[in-house]
């Protein structure tokens, strides 16, 4: 039993990513989409919060939203995996439910 969490806001404008990290359980997946992808960049003030949950929670980022924003894979926090839409669909299917942190 696991949950897919999506986060679509920049962590610098809302607390959605933080709230998501606070509620995700071990074995869950967090997918950062839309402006949420900014949360996956390393060197920000939030890197530690993400890294602390990485491993127990799998961290992913939607590739097309990264590319649109000029966020290169080399700038991602270690352990964050880019996925395409097919990967997004697989995550929805492979988790029991999806919670969108709007």
């Amino acid at each position, binding site marked *: *039993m*696991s*949950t897919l969490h999506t986060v679509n806001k920049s962590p610098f404008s809302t*607390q*959605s990513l933080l*709230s998501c990290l*606070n*509620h*995700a*359980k071990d074995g*869950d997946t967090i997918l950062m989409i839309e402006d949420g992808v900014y949360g996956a960049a390393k060197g920000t003030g939030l890197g530690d919060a993400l890294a602390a949950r990485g491993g127990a929670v799998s961290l992913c980022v939607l590739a097309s939203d990264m590319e649109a924003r000029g966020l290169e894979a080399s700038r991602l926090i270690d352990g964050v995996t880019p996925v395409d839409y097919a990967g997004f669909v697989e995550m929805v299917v492979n988790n*029991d*439910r*999806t*919670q*969108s*942190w*709007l």
Partner: protein
Amino acid sequence: MSETVKKFFYVNRKAPYGTIFAQEALEVVLIGAAFDQDVSLGFLDDGVYQLVKGQDTKDLGVKNFSPTFRALGDYDVTKLFVEKESLDERGLSADDLDEIMYEDEDDDWAEKPSIRIVSRAEMADIMADQDVVLSF
């Protein structure tokens, strides 16, 4: 209406009035109540502001929908989980919230509170136990 009973969880994370999300979420809850599913509501982050007592929208000129929460018991919606950490972070306590009661038909119609204050970890457990999550 349906043979399948699923666990529906409404996630309320937005404050009232500044945007329409809280009000339109409540409209879904009311309609959804007719489907005889196992319904719970979660209030976390700014969503806890929806339940604060003393809301008065007369001067604003928009509908005050907070009394509707008190009617949810009549629709058999009796599980309103409110996250303690979200209250604490906002300088609120359970006393700042509206009193929302329901009559328990399994307990000789005893009046019981619908609001249950839960910890963040409990909220995560509740979320992880649902079939359908509707996010607002």
